[in-house]
């Protein structure tokens, strides 16, 4: 059993008590929402005739269904309009702060909430979205929950939970060129398998994580759920504190006092874990997925595995994945033509991701449809001040408004037929990008940018020497 970890301390602080079922009732310090997983939860409250217990601890945004080209209301898509309108009505009725299109702060939920300073070390955060784990980058316990649980949190500011085991994942060694947090995460998921993290929360540490920016830590924590872990976190440090300083909702006059608390909740030096996983990063190369789950990944210069490389059960899965993806084992993945490149999402739609992609694309032309979808209005403005929009537009890419977009195709940004995409998002599941037969290759923004130029899956190291931003 774990002892003295950030998880233990934060969990302990939020325990209300034991429920008659033996589960723990846990207080929720921050509750975040979007339009897809909440309408039925508000309906449950209305049916019971109850109010939101702590509306001041809940914040909402529209991101999944929002169009990224023309955003005038009503949206062309009537279902999208209804979902947005329903959320707007609900937040008004229940007194919840909402970041609408006209707020200047709208964007992908997991990008805007940290950007606004709403995520602070030591919090217990939930949201009706599996990528809630992103917030772990700040030293919080963050869990994705379902809609009925959203109603529990709205009504009582608590929910029933069981404590997870804790696996300490240490990334040590020297990173090779063009290897990003995305590549480390895909490598880790390949190593553990997509089921490897079930029952665990991950604590990330090691010199590589210590040296990461907050945005890189968010990418790393964002992807833990793809490896089966419900949550993942990094202990707060000076990088965290520096990021939070002067953020809109972060403490101001109490900042130093808060900092002491944030240091206190970090894992003790002699903390005990349920499991430890050491990863030497020095041999990791840019990673690309070839199959239909994020664990089906290879280094960009590797050959696609042959079904015979796997055991019986995995063999069937590999055969099925190759058939769906229209690929053959034993050949290079590099050079496979793509139809669409998508740069964005809660995984890789932050400013540093766009900067990295722009660095490769500067002065070049894309040869396939390329969508660049910034994660928020705030960072979109920032990128435009830096001239990144011009680099993308001059390269022939489309510079869009913020939203989840082609990560899951709930808005008009979708693959068509068996189109193949190079995507910086988080899931390469069958049908994920809006077409039931669409094909997705996950990769970092740098690899996606290189792929956009060549129109086929491309090793970004090829463009290393030419960069000049």
């Amino acid at each position, binding site marked *: 059993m774990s002892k003295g970890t950030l998880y233990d301390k934060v969990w302990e602080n939020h325990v*209300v008590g034991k429920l008659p*079922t033996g589960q723990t009732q846990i207080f929720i310090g921050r509750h975040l929402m979007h339009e897809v997983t909440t309408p039925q939860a508000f309906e449950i409250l209305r049916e019971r005739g109850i109010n939101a217990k702590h509306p001041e601890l809940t914040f909402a945004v529209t991101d999944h269904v929002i169009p990224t080209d023309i955003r005038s209301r009503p949206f062309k898509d009537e279902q999208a309009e209804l979902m947005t309108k329903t959320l707007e009505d609900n937040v008004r009725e229940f007194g919840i702060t909402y970041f609408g299109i006209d707020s200047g702060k709208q964007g992908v939920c997991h990008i805007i909430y940290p950007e606004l300073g709403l995520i602070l070390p030591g919090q217990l955060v939930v949201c009706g979205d*599996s990528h809630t784990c992103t917030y772990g980058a700040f030293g919080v316990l963050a869990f994705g929950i379902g809609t009925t649980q959203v109603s529990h949190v709205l009504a009582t500011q608590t929910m029933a939970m*069981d404590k997870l085991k804790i696996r300490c994942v240490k990334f040590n060694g020297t990173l090779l060129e063009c290897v990003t947090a995305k590549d480390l995460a895909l490598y880790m998921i390949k190593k553990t398998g997509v089921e490897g993290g*079930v029952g665990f929360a991950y604590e990330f540490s090691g010199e590589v994580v210590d040296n990461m920016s907050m945005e890189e830590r968010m990418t790393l924590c964002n992807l833990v759920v793809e490896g*089966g872990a419900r949550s993942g976190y990094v202990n707060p440090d000076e990088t965290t504190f520096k990021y939070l300083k002067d953020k809109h909702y972060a403490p101001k006059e109490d900042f130093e006092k808060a900092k002491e608390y944030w240091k206190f909740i970090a894992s003790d030096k002699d903390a005990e874990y349920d499991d430890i996983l050491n990863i030497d990063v020095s041999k990791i190369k840019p990673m690309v997925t070839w199959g239909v789950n994020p664990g089906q990944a290879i280094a960009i210069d590797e050959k696609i595995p042959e079904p015979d490389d796997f055991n019986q059960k995995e063999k069937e899965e590999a055969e099925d994945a190759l058939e769906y993806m229209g690929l053959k084992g034993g050949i290079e993945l590099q050079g496979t033509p793509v139809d669409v490149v998508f740069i964005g999402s809660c995984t890789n739609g932050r400013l540093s991701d766009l900067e990295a992609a722009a660095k490769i694309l500067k002065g070049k032309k894309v040869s396939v449809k390329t969508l660049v979808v910034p994660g928020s209005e705030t960072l979109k403005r920032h990128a435009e001040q830096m001239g990144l929009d011009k680099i993308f537009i001059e390269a022939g890419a489309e510079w869009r408004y913020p939203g989840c977009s082609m990560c*899951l195709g*709930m808005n008009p940004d979708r693959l068509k037929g068996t189109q193949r995409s190079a995507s910086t998002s988080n899931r390469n599941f069958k049908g994920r990008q809006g077409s039931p037969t669409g094909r997705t290759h996950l990769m970092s923004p740098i690899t996606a940018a290189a792929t956009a130029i060549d129109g086929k899956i491309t090793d970004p190291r090829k463009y290393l020497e030419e960069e000049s931003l």
Partner: protein
Amino acid sequence: MTDQFKIPEKTITNIIGRAIPKPANDQNTDDILPARYMKEITFKKMGEYVYFDERFKEGKIVKEHPFNDEKYKGATILIAGANYGCGSSREHAPQALHRFGINAVIAGSFAEIFAGNCASLGLVGIVVPPEKITMLAEYVEQKPSTEFDIDLAQKVIRYDEHVVEFDMPEGRRQAFLNGLWDAMAILEQNEGKIKETAAGLPYLKFR
């Protein structure tokens, strides 16, 4: 827990019925309920969309899909592989299964968020080792009329002359047996202690 608490009358002790075998590993929530069918503000129609992209291809019904196959019609138990329900947190996925008529899922293992969502709907999720999943699936394929009895009190599955033990988190088992799986009622009981916990959190007071 306070004394005035009353147990809701929703105890679930046994799930009895025939089964649908679908033993693949890593079936994700996009498989179970594709994202484009989430664009609704109620769960009412979700049962129609379950496994939609597998069950219907290019507008045509895929007759051999276990959820379309006549021989499994009316089954209430799903037999699935490991890591069932991985992917997104969408409750639309278990809602779709439940509204299609599934009352229990026997799997090699479950993704965490999915398992929690099932429990809060009264959809029973139980775990047996992978080799037992293969065995059960093959048994049902050969004899689709097999009637199963999932006994939550004894933690066993009975069918014909066979008995298989299963596992599940104890808190969830107790919640089903005692009718507490709709957690809202028990969470609402502890108002005083909730206030106390909130008062003890320094970050709620930082300015």
